[in-house]
């Protein structure tokens, strides 16, 4: 045990003496969270929108006036042709188009259900969502005033259509995404690089020749990164709650337990990489390109998995980050309990055991 502790101590020396890596370890999660946080807290003013009025009746004019009166919107253009809608999204900074159907007032007077179409550019999902809900609010307010006077029930329903990102992955979803990325980066890349470094410098030779159990050598190398990751996790959670206002809706302990499980998964991947590589560059490349990039693309927080080709959807199932992402989203955002994530937890656990067993089996107690 003393051996083990002195080993862990030595690892901490390595970490704390390498100032640049240290900065990366603690700076990266903060920078990421703050960056995504800005996307979240940005207040929208004077968003450019366009109106496509097919009705040209008093009602459409009145609603347009109300939209114009709101400081959130800046009506830039009045469209005359349906083809202009796509054109204007592409050629200008227009965030949203409101389409009034023909005979709006007539239909309303007749008591028929009528729809105002709101088309939003959802490549920036937060803005799109915020803007369309404002339009929604304006139309509802207008109607409630109207009905109060005439006693006719609600009939105009704004029909919101999101283009470019219909899933509307909002910034709230980025917090779980950043968590999975940061943990993966620190645990997998740092562990693999630090073990391979010992191989490169020749110190692994000396360690192997010592009576210290070779498996403990690599296990003890993971301990500092395990602790640093948990620390990082706490920082991320604190930042997201107090800086971004993304609350933890579920059980904090459940969230921590699940995260620790994922950390161990990532550590196992790091071990596996280190047992099959001989140089730091190779370890870094495998971590970044082989593991991290798929984790970013196929986890679901950047691009919706449901829209991917079947083959990619299938591949995404073997990416541990995907399952962790689902778990965090369920616990943190949706506030669900263990009962609804036991399946994902089990999958992650299975993957971890498999990876750990494989990496220990691949670890060589001899050279060559």
């Amino acid at each position, binding site marked *: 045990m003393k051996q083990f502790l*002195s080993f862990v101590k030595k690892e901490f020396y390595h970490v704390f*003496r390498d100032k640049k890596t240290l900065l990366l370890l603690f700076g990266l999660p903060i920078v990421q969270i703050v960056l995504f946080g800005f996307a979240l807290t940005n207040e929208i003013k004077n968003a450019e929108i366009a109106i496509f009025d097919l009705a040209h009746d008093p009602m459409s004019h009145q609603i347009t006036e109300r939209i114009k009166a709101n400081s959130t919107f800046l009506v830039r253009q009045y469209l005359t042709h349906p083809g202009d809608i796509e054109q204007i999204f592409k050629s200008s900074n227009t965030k949203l188009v409101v389409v009034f159907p023909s005979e709006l007032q007539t239909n309303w007077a007749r008591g028929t259900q009528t729809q105002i179409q709101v088309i939003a550019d959802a490549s920036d999902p937060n803005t799109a969502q915020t803007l369309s809900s404002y339009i929604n609010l304006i139309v509802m307010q207008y109607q409630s005033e109207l009905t109060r006077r005439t006693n006719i029930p609600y009939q105009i329903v704004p029909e919101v259509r999101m283009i470019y990102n219909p899933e509307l992955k909002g910034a709230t979803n980025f917090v779980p995404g950043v968590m999975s990325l940061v943990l993966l980066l620190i645990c997998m890349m740092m562990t693999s690089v630090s073990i391979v470094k010992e191989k490169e410098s*020749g*110190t692994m030779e000396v360690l192997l020749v010592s*009576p210290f159990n070779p498996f403990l050598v690599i296990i003890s190398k993971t301990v500092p990164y395990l602790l640093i990751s948990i620390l990082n996790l706490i920082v991320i959670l604190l930042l997201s709650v107090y800086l971004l206002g993304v609350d933890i809706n579920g059980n904090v302990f459940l969230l921590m337990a699940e995260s620790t499980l994922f950390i161990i998964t990532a550590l196992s991947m790091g071990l596996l990489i280190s047992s099959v590589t001989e140089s730091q560059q190779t370890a870094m490349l495998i971590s970044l390109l082989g593991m991290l990039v798929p984790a970013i693309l196929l986890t679901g927080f950047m691009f919706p998995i449901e829209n991917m080709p079947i083959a990619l959807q299938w591949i995404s199932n073997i990416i541990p980050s995907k399952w962790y992402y689902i778990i965090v989203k369920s616990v943190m955002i949706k506030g669900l309990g263990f009962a609804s994530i036991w399946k994902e937890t089990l999958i992650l656990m299975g993957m971890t055991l498999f990876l750990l067993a494989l990496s220990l089996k691949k670890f060589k107690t001899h*050279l060559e």
Partner: protein
Amino acid sequence: MDIILQNICKTYTKSGVEALKDISFEVPKGELFGLIGPDGAGKTSIFRILTTLLYPNSGKATVLGLDTQTHFKTIREKIGYMPGRFSLYQDLTVEENLNFFARLFNTTIAQNYELIKDIYIQIEPFKNRPAGKLSGGMKQKLALSCALIHRPEILFLDEPTTGVDAVSRKEFWHMLKRLKNEGITIMVSTPYMDEATLCERIALIQNGQILSIDSPEGIQRQYPFRLFAVKSSNMSGLLRFLRALKTVQSVFSFGEYHHVTFLNANASVVDELKIDIKRAGFDQFEIKETTPGIEDCFIQLMPS
């Protein structure tokens, strides 16, 4: 016998390099044994097999009576190993490195301080300096201290003096002598032939094969030819001239002299040479019979 190698062969699967070809030798307890040979001769492979890091393809190696393949865990507790490259943590200080290796072998610096004292005392003034910032000679002393901290029964030192200046090298060999007197068996390798005479017994090794194995004096005695040292004011001209002579078997430069052997070294050959040299116009010519050094023996034993 502390170390026994029997018909060891090793071919690296990845590169296909045949590193060791049927190597057999023994090292008795308490001996200072040297493996002498250039880079790529197979010295490191022998060390790695004996330190249980590498399995041989065939043959058997035992260390302290234990088989290196089946009893590697026990062997690892009893040996000290200093690999060819500097294998300490450059970002840890001198003291932290030593502490770490002591713990690794389940001991403390205090427990075995007596053994390393003479060596460690020289680097102790720098104990708070990162190991990476030490000079070559000091790194080597620290590495030796770390390899000794658990009082091993056998010390394996793979090229400890490579790239180290002549002064530090001399000091290092003094330290090894002292350790030998403590009863530790030492196996050391070096590419510097002049260091061979500091060992009790040596194996000359080249291309994975042992050329000769004996005490340095024994190897020198086995040199089959009479050896002459010659010099003149124009050494490179003399070298070319001697190479062209039919009576000359071999000529190599050795410091300020050229070492020459003759095909038929009878009494008259030196006189004949003197006449030839004079005719060719070399100034300040000098010739004397000399005793061969290990390097002469190595060159003679190398397959051409």
